[in-house]
């Protein structure tokens, strides 16, 4: 199986625009997910730079307060709903059918629908910038009463409509993943031989399926309150503002696992390949993933400790408990690296970046679960530091690792290693320069979501450092885009399996032909390609 007869320059890349717009091929849809997500990553990044530029020193220099509010609201909305969640779904789309030896997703046309709802929802959301009153500006959480009709214009309605479409896209995608994983696996691909990425996508899909509709219900109630005279969240008329927070976080806390589990899956694909060892404790890892998913539904109110209307000990305890399966994973990853034959190619660099930065994010997260600590740091920059260590230091590093790892499979060409390493180093430095000072800012009492602060607060230096870091991160993307452009034309030809990898996507040509496989190797373990390479094709 090492070589396949198919020409790497198969129609997958060369087909015309019409073919891309109408495709139901999971690989093309997966690539469109990636491109669309990176587009929103750039837009969200520009908004972040606006926020950072404004905060660099006391006083208002660049934008108005009202635009500042729109900028941080839309930054978070783009990054969470239109970058991290969909780009991970994009990796799932591209990789999961290949890894389980399936010809495509279970419902290819619904798959295309899931994708096309994203640019549509994103455009709706972003169009808020062009209506009077501007885009949504109450923070990505859109708490009432601040998000009520008396304070916000059409931009918030567009935000609600856009997010509803994006949620629908996620729900349809999760159904597709679940049916694909349960029904489309190749002969021999038992559940406990599935690659870890497939497991994480499976658990993530369950979370999406169960949590996202609850967000939809919160959004329609908010929309009704704003537009049809409803009173769901209006305490003056018998409603409850905390109700919104409960319903919203019932989605949005599991959502952080939706944003991290597939990233953990990517890292768990990369580490064994680049340390030339099997993943340490495969089954423990699977159960830890399921454990995180299950516990993820019982911690939402830790975002609401200071409302005074939630049962603190329960939600605090459950939040601490999540550190247990997460710790199991951390142990597995380190044990996988331990005494491995490490080759520090770019994907492994990003994976180790993930391990170290996510560890910090995890520790300061568990720290925040302690009720007294939370009361002190609630709504300060500490929380901003935490979420970025988890979602940037965690998810984004894993995403770039995934891009470097699977780019050869998607395009048939390698990304340049030199530029990749340069990008990693700059991004790693910029990331820590941006977000580490935010811990101190939070402890010093700087609230999140403020456009200005007094110079007497003593926050100026740390803010300036964070702003410089933000621009360093932005700069680190230049070598990346240059790398992609150059490598698409002149990159080293990848061949079927440039990394000496373990899983089935490397058993077909790069890029794979339509319907993926001419011929599948025998699947006797969770590393079928490794088995085939080393001649271990008999059962044992």
């Amino acid at each position, binding site marked *: 199986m090492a070589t396949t007869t198919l020409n790497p320059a198969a129609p997958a890349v060369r087909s015309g625009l019409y073919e891309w717009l109408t495709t139901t091929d999971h690989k093309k849809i997966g690539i469109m997910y990636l491109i669309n997500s990176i587009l929103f990553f750039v837009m969200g990044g520009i908004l972040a730079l606006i926020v950072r530029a404004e905060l660099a020193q006391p006083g208002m220099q660049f934008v108005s307060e009202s635009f500042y509010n729109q900028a941080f609201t839309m930054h978070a909305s783009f990054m969470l709903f239109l970058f991290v969640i969909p780009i991970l779904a994009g990796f799932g789309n591209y990789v999961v059918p290949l890894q389980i030896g399936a010809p495509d997703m279970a419902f290819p046309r619904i798959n295309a629908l899931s994708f096309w709802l994203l640019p549509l929802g994103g455009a709706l959301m972003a169009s808020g910038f062009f209506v009077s009153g501007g885009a949504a500006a109450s923070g990505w959480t859109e708490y009432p009463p601040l998000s009520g009709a008396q304070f916000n214009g059409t931009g918030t309605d567009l935000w609600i409509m856009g997010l509803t479409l994006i949620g629908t896209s996620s729900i349809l995608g999760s159904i597709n993943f679940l049916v694909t994983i349960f*029904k489309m696996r190749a002969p021999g*691909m038992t559940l406990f031989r599935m690659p870890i990425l497939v497991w994480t996508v499976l658990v993530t899909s369950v979370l999406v*399926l*169960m949590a996202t509709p609850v967000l939809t219900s919160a959004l329609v109630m908010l929309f009704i309150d704003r537009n049809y005279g*409803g*009173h769901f969240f209006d305490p003056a008329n018998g409603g409850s503002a905390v109700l919104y927070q409960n319903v919203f976080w*019932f989605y949005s806390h599991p959502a952080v696992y939706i944003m991290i589990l597939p990233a953990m899956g990517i890292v768990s694909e990369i580490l064994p390949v680049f340390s030339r060892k099997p993943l340490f404790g495969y089954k423990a890892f699977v159960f830890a993933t399921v454990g995180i998913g299950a516990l993820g539904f019982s911690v939402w109110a830790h975002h609401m400790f200071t409302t005074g209307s939630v049962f603190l000990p329960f939600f605090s305890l459950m939040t601490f408990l999540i550190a247990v399966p997460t710790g199991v994973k951390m142990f597995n990853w380190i044990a996988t690296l331990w005494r491995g034959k490490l080759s520090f190619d770019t994907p492994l660099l990003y994976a180790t970046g993930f391990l170290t930065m996510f560890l910090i994010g995890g520790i300061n997260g568990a720290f925040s679960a302690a009720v007294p600590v939370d009361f002190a740091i609630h709504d300060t920059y500490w929380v901003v530091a935490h979420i970025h260590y988890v979602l940037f230091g965690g998810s984004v590093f894993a995403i770039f690792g995934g891009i470097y790892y699977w780019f050869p499979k998607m395009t048939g060409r390698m990304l340049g290693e030199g530029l990749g390493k340069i990008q990693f180093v700059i991004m790693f430095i910029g990331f820590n320069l941006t977000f580490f000072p935010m811990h101190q800012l939070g402890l010093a009492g700087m609230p999140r979501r403020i456009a200005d602060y007094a110079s007497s607060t003593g926050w100026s230096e740390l803010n300036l450092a964070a702003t410089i870091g933000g621009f360093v991160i932005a700069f680190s993307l230049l070598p990346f885009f240059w790398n992609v452009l150059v490598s698409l034309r002149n990159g080293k030809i990848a061949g079927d399996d440039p990394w000496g990898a373990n899983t089935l996507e490397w058993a077909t040509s790069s890029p794979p032909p339509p319907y993926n496989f001419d011929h599948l190797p025998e699947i006797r373990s969770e590393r079928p390609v490794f088995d085939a390479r080393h001649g271990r094709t008999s059962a044992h």
Partner: protein
Amino acid sequence: MTADATSLTTQAETQTEAHAVEAHGSGGIGNPVLGMLLFIASEVMFFAGLFAAYFTIRANFIDIDGVRRWPPLAYDALLQPFRLFTDSGQLNLIVPATIILILSSVTCQLGVNAIKRGDRTGFLRNFAVTLVLGGTFLLMQAYDYSVLINEGLTMGATTFGTTYFTMTGFHGAHVFGGVLMLGVVAYRGMAGQFSAKHHDMVEATSLYWHFVDIVWIVLFSVIYLLPLLSRKGAL
């Protein structure tokens, strides 16, 4: 399909084998049916969010006279399910509408049973009846809405009005979606696309229809029957 070669009996067309064709690996439940079950799971969570809001608001509601009461006294007479006329003499169709929706679930299932036997006429006839019953439910709901709004129960009239119209409204939207699905399936059925072996879409549609029916039964019980109980006991 290798195992099926051995079972060339007269019962080769039982429904257990009907799904084995499409599956890539194993047999069992068909992809569209599994997909629909998962979709229904997500819909359950959507309505769960609305019910959570309903019960939260209900638990905290204080009527205009300062008494804890649900529904508000002003709309109490309107929401008596077993009175055929309101105080102003208009028809109250909520119980007939409920009966019609439950009946439509029965006819829908009869249609599925028919196509499993290979009886296309029976399947089409039952699905047509289901479609008509579903449409009738929607018309009756529209009429009911007009009565309630005339009597002053609107979206903005207390949190009861908000929850009432949101929940029954989203249920109505789901019935409408179900009617569209029934229409598509009936149209495809007329083109002869379903048989005793191939009817996953029929089954998936019927599952959705039953789900919509069950949501209504829960809604009806919570909105109309539960207040009857609490009125009998302590307020």
